[in-house]
């Protein structure tokens, strides 16, 4: 299984997105007890917000550190961090994006990072039931797309052409950080955005190019959306009230954050929807 959630404040003003995501993940906790995480697009920083695992002897592997780097070049920043701390793993980089994730359920996530206090315009969340790859922080979601600021993805399902796509990308020099098939989605979107596609165009292409059963949510600093496989094999419900748009695998998560009466509808087979994040 796994649970995915997404939440967008329609007004574009910074709101209690962390609290909303936590409420949605808590409602979906039974879909994935192994790990949980959120990606929140908060107020823009001067430099780049960086979340990384320390990778040092004095801190246990899997512990997250958050810092801000006075830099603008994501690739150079990644290279510098990895040169200085070879064991470190970068979890997210962005002017607005911050990803925190942890082994354990949503309650553990809140205890460790105080997610409920994270403000922003929009965010994604994931609660994981591991089926193939390891249970650790690295393999938890959401995934930052690497090499590009502010792009993150949370996925429910299996990408069955993952190994073939990964070989293709690796031949092009792309580095993968985990054995989790979901990581390929961020890489795919990043490459499409690099070719000049919008997030919506990239996600529409992904429905054709990715094989398997999937629902995923993805966002950048200025766009937020979801995609669903052409056979409609994984649930994804879209809800909307006067203030917000929320997506999740089950309506119980929408009910936790939307004010009734709200609309709720299962997304169609192969559906892609992307909303612009209004500048508040």
């Amino acid at each position: 299984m796994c649970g995915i959630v997404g939440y967008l404040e329609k007004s574009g003003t910074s709101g209690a997105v962390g609290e909303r995501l936590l409420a949605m993940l808590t409602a979906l906790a039974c879909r994935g007890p192994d790990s949980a995480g959120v990606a929140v697009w908060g107020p823009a920083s001067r430099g780049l917000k960086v979340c990384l695992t320390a990778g040092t002897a004095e801190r246990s592997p899997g512990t997250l550190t958050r810092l801000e780097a006075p830099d603008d070049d994501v690739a150079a920043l990644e290279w510098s961090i990895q040169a200085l701390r070879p064991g470190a793993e970068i979890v997210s980089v962005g002017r607005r994006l911050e990803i925190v994730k942890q082994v354990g359920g949503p309650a553990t996530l809140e205890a460790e990072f105080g997610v409920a206090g994270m403000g922003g315009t929009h965010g994604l969340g994931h609660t994981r039931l591991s089926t193939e790859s390891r249970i650790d922080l690295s393999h938890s979601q959401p995934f930052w797309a690497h090499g590009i600021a502010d792009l993150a993805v949370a996925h429910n399902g299996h990408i069955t052409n993952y190994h073939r796509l990964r070989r293709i990308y690796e031949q092009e020099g792309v580095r993968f950080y985990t054995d989790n098939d979901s990581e390929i989605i961020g890489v795919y979107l990043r490459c499409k955005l690099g070719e000049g596609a919008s997030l919506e165009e990239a996600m529409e292409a992904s429905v054709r190019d990715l094989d398997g059963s999937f629902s995923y949510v993805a966002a950048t600093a200025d766009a937020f959306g979801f995609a669903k496989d052409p056979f409609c094999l994984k649930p994804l419900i879209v809800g909307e009230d006067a203030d917000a748009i929320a997506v999740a695998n089950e309506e119980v998560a929408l009910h936790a954050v939307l004010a009734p009466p709200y609309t709720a509808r299962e997304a169609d087979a192969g559906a892609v929807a992307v909303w612009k994040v209004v500048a508040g």
Partner: protein
Amino acid sequence: MKEVDCEGLTVRQINAAIRRLVDDGERDIVVRHPAARHNLAVATLTEARITIDGPVGYYCAGMSDGANVEIHGSAGWGVAECLLAGTVIVDGNAGNSAAASIRGGAVVIRGDAGARAGVAMKGGLLVIGGVCGFMTGFMMQRGTIVVCGDAAEAVADSMYEGVVYVGGAITKAGADTVVSEATADERSEIAATLSGYGIKGPDSFRKIVSGRRLWNYDRRERGLWAAAL
């Protein structure tokens, strides 16, 4: 009329409370604050009227035999799955696989239905007031589906028997189907059925039935099988 308030209760406790009331002879039950929980009001085997005052999650009213369940909200996957008799009415939209494998009774979705609504139906009636999703009526074996709005791709794919009426546009009919215009008698019958549930449908419907060419394998029709598979 008796109420069951879901606040603070587990699904098992809610269903046990409903069953206790039914066993005690209560025939009009209102379920408050369902909060989109899964598996509510399942396997009710008596002609009780159960009104659920809000959205429900997966498999609501599944395996029921004779109950009349009305959901004042949307429903998740598999609403009314394996219904034997009675009615299940959803005021809002329904997720995938609504009315899957029902053998009898009527399932009415006033809004839109997701993918594979009426999959493997073995009898009964499914009414969809809005549009229906991918592969609605897939492998249905008996019964009737009425879709007032548009039908997404592969409607009635590989059906054995039964009939699907579509009032809106058909994106692409499924494998081994025959599409024709509904007759005047059929239109009258559909209008009467819809009117019974307070739904105003379109004036005309197209009728989809099985082409029966997938019933038995014939190697001269390998192309048809290849397309269906």
